[in-house]
């Protein structure tokens, strides 16, 4: 075919719209609006973190300057009326109850996530996922009540005596030090139930988002379901699963109400799973607005909030570093 003769073939079918035209200008306006508004939103969030941290530092400054930091952090007596502000029992209580919860929740939650992502049919998944989302959304006071009605008697009448008779004979950590049932184990158990669905949901999401080709490739090499899952978890899922655990940790560490209802609220260093303890958020929630006439009391509570923020921030930064390292190592 002689193309030069059929010149109509070369006529552009669509007329180009000049860059200066109204349509094009409107597109550019929309583009820069989107950029500016989303940028502003990010800026506001960053500012918010800064403002919160600054407020806490300023308001807790009186106590931070009145006592040396190590005395505040390691002091074990909390007697505001006598001017003694030891945060150690609260920090220890918070860390202990979070650890108990994570010990109980992480492994079952990760495996549930794996099961949902790799082994269920899409119909079963469609039925189970809303259930898990529902669990995430239940208010903590409901979890707390359920703990009081169900977990406390269980720990008091069954788990406690049993543990005391068996493990407690060898390890003081498992000795039943407190017959009421209110303590680390009960609070940790309910906390575990609270973070469980969160970790399940994120783990499932992470594994689902692994490339379909990866699953196909592994199965086509004759890998079993479990081998495929292992490889996907190790090579593609680990950073995400870790992020899920961090999310669960932060959620557990900051939980206030459910813990307050179950931990016993005794400011002491816990030495046993059954000890009553006290958590940082509970300290603030129980006391703020009360005997504010005591000098430095309010400032001390602000210090507790600052400690809470610092621990969560520190933990998140550490985890972020691990995740970055893992992601880099996986590419290799």
């Amino acid at each position: 075919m002689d193309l030069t003769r059929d010149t109509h073939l070369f006529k552009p079918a669509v007329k180009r719209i000049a860059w200066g035209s109204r349509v094009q200008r409107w597109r550019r306006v929309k583009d820069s609006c989107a950029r500016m508004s989303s940028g502003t939103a990010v800026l506001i969030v960053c500012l918010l973190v800064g403002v919160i941290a600054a407020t806490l530092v300023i308001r807790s400054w009186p106590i931070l300057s009145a006592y040396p930091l190590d005395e505040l952090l390691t002091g074990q007596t909390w007697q505001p009326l006598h001017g003694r502000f030891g945060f150690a029992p609260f920090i220890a209580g918070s860390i202990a109850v979070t650890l108990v919860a994570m010990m109980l929740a992480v492994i079952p939650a990760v495996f549930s996530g794996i099961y949902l992502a790799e082994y269920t049919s899409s119909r079963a998944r469609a039925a189970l996922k809303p259930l898990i989302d529902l669990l995430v959304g239940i208010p903590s006071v409901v979890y707390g009540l359920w703990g009081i009605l169900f977990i406390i008697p269980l720990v008091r009448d069954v788990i406690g005596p049993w543990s005391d008779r068996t493990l407690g004979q060898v390890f003081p950590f498992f000795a039943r030090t407190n017959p009421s049932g209110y303590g680390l184990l009960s609070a940790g158990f309910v906390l575990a139930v609270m973070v469980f669905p969160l970790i399940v949901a994120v783990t499932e999401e992470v594994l689902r988002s692994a490339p379909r080709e990866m699953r196909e490739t592994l199965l086509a090499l004759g890998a079993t379901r479990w081998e495929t899952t292992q490889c996907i978890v190790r090579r593609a899922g680990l950073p995400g699963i870790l992020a899920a655990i961090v999310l669960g940790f932060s959620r557990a560490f900051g939980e206030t109400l459910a813990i307050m209802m179950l931990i016993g609220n005794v400011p002491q260093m816990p030495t046993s799973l059954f000890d009553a303890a006290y958590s940082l958020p509970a300290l603030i929630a129980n006391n703020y607005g009360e005997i504010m006439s005591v000098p430095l009391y309010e400032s001390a509570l602000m210090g507790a909030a600052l400690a809470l923020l610092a621990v969560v921030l520190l933990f998140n930064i550490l985890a972020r570093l691990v995740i970055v390292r893992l992601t880099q190592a996986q590419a290799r």
Partner: protein
Amino acid sequence: MYALSIRQLNVWYDKQHVLKDITVDVPRRQITAIIGPSGCGKSTLLKSLNRLLDLNERVRVSGQVLFEGQNIYDPGTDVTDVRTRIGLLAQKPFPLPMSIFDNVAYGPRIHGLGNGHLAQIVTAQLQAVGLWEEVKDRLKAPATGLSGGQQQRLCLARTLAVAPEVLLCDESTASLDPISARGIEALLRGLREKYTLVLVTHDIEQARRLADHVVFMWLGELVEHGPAGPFFAQPEQKLTQAYLAREIG
């Protein structure tokens, strides 16, 4: 004589009937090419041969695929074993997110092959696909850093490392540049000695160059099949003639 015998195979995606009563035999140690226009069911047919279709819950299969006399769709079949013996090379190279060495070693490792001489297996397979010289100094480097053609050869080495009997290739040269594609073609031709090969291609010329046996499909039906010589020289069906003359498709 035949490695695979497909008997009245039907496949549905939900309600859509994509493979209709396919009956054909795949001769052992030869290259069988499946050709046909886009969407006619070539990939579906290929994936039905090592039960990779099972991954899609919406797929329904009826009929039989006899592999060395055994129907792989029998309820008692060990699917893992089927997939080990019938390997698949995908259209787009997908290096696993691990090192070059581990990519090839993965299969032998899970199957417990070559304890102690894993390195020899990896070396041999990389040599077989002509990749050894290019990667021998960076076996520990991530496989994703290779070029497309290198990746596809790595995937071939990885598939061969589990010692399959049948090799299925789904347009395995389609995403490559002409030179890499020719390289893969040459490799596949060389593999005919030891393996039964089934290739999907929409490139008629490639089928002419490689195939001993051709299967032509159209809208989910098998139109014509037979040895490559007569098939290309005197196709019987009008549809085949038109397709080979590029009048349709």
